[in-house]
């Protein structure tokens, strides 16, 4: 079985986000990029499927700072091929453009199964997974937490609100949007990643010209203005704890 995981790098939300001079986009200059959380689950799910049923796993990442780290970490976990998509992605790229260039690369890999993260927090123009599926002429199921393979059919556990699962049977080849892997993503120690770096090689493939059509134009970006903000309790943990106890008592909780 041939599995491809498409990974996206997104701004790390722990860092401060800044809006650029245009007032309509994030300032990418100092932005720290990390792997989209759900892509990490997609990689894990792919590794689990490979461990259970064999196959070849290829991970594709658009070139940006941190792309090599993500690829080597994936290799350390068990990915066989590492592809870096070369193009001008530093300024940020919308998902419609990304899905189009990914489609060209992924098609050549002739996958049975393509996994992506269910969504990324910066997806203003929809998610890559279902866009890619459509370009590849494959079906798509998202919000998937757990996948099994049986004779050319993928059984995907699709999440609905409240913990309900819809078990979907999907014919291969297909694209699935992963919300969570069957098991939590494994941790690989940095020493193992370093070792992998010596043997694994990253293939660079040029992306076609980027066509951003299909995305909306943003006229303004801003941090949410809130009318009411929490009353902040100042002090060290002892003072905060004391004040919280008072609040609990006033509310009749204590």
């Amino acid at each position: 079985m041939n599995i491809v995981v498409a990974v996206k790098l997104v701004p790390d939300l722990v860092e401060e986000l800044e809006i650029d001079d245009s007032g309509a986009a994030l300032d990418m200059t100092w932005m720290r990029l990390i792997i989209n959380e759900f892509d990490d689950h997609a990689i894990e799910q792919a590794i689990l499927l490979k461990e259970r049923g064999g196959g070849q796993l290829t991970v594709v990442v658009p070139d940006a700072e941190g792309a090599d780290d993500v690829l080597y970490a994936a290799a350390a976990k068990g990915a066989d091929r590492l592809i870096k998509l070369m193009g001008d992605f530093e300024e940020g790229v919308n998902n419609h453009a990304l899905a189009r260039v990914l489609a060209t690369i992924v098609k050549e890999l002739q996958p049975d199964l393509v996994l992506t993260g269910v969504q990324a927090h910066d997806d203003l123009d929809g998610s890559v997974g279902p866009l890619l599926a459509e370009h590849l002429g494959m079906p798509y199921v998202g919000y998937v937490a757990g996948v099994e393979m049986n004779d050319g059919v993928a059984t995907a556990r699709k999440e609905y609100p409240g913990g309900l699962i819809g078990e979907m049977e999907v014919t291969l080849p297909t694209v699935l949007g992963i919300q969570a892997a069957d098991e939590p993503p494994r941790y690989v120690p940095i020493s193992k990643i370093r070792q992998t770096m010596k043997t694994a090689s990253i293939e660079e493939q040029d992306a076609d010209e980027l066509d951003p059509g299909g995305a909306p134009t943003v006229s303004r970006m801003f941090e949410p203005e809130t009318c009411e903000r929490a009353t902040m309790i100042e002090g060290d943990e002892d003072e905060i704890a004391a004040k919280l106890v008072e609040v609990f008592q006033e509310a009749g909780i204590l």
Partner: protein
Amino acid sequence: MNQDIYVVIEHLRGQMADISYVMLAAARALAQGTGGSVMAVLLGHNAQELAGDLAADRVLYVDDPALADFTSDAYLAALSALISENEPRAVLLGHTSIGMDVASGLSARLGLPLVSQCQSLSADGKFLSQICGGKIMAEGALPGPTALVTMAPGGYKPEEGQSAEPPEVAPTAAPTLEGLRVTLAQYIEPEAGDVDISKEPILISVGRGIQNEDHIELAEELAKALGGVVCSSRPVVDQGWLPTSRMVGKSGQVVKPKLYLAMGISGAPEHVEAITDSEMIIAVNTDPAAPIFDIAQYGAEVDMTDLLEVLTELVEEEKGG
């Protein structure tokens, strides 16, 4: 092309989803500007009665056995035919497990622009979306000719999209739904947890800020002292540190406790949508810019693991004395 606003109604196992009403309210706001009608698109099988309280000018009802349960493939086929035939000004879908499975596919298949994570739409044709876990708002003009939009909850109250008068229902033909590649095998009910967090009055909720599994114990102790239970955001459950039954949020439980103590939770929209009916939210987070502080009544900028032990001790003291 016309100025109508289509709303793809969401329902599951005979149950209407609140997001359907939210979308109808948003569609009404937009239609006031375009001058078109609000059209509810109801796909299903023997599901006509679901149309009863939709605040729409008309319900386009497509009945087909292949639409008895949601599957992305069948919805995509039915909707793409309907949209390309009628060319409405906008089509609203839920930013949900159902809507997100088809919105991007429709965009690619029909070559139509898509706006995602939308909070509200205005009569002057603008969208407002919330991205980056609630830290950034993005505004722009709704693209044309037909804009596809996935709507997140929060911008409108479900009541705004409900009507006492049943709307007119127009049976609508679907293309032949054959050769479908996705089928529903079965539904699997959520495992019943030891507690039902949707009914608990005191919730100590922990997020990724808890850092490691050993710290869960600290939260359990505080919960015990306060007579509450521990719940969490998604990453804590995905790490396997708490069972799924304790997950709060879009894919977990909706809660409405007297006290929701959110510790080490950033306040992403997928989490926040499920806690807004709490009587009191108190947030503890080391990041002063965490969006959770925007919806909490009280907040403290402190390391949660430092606070937990001290707070538990103090609560026990108060109760003892």
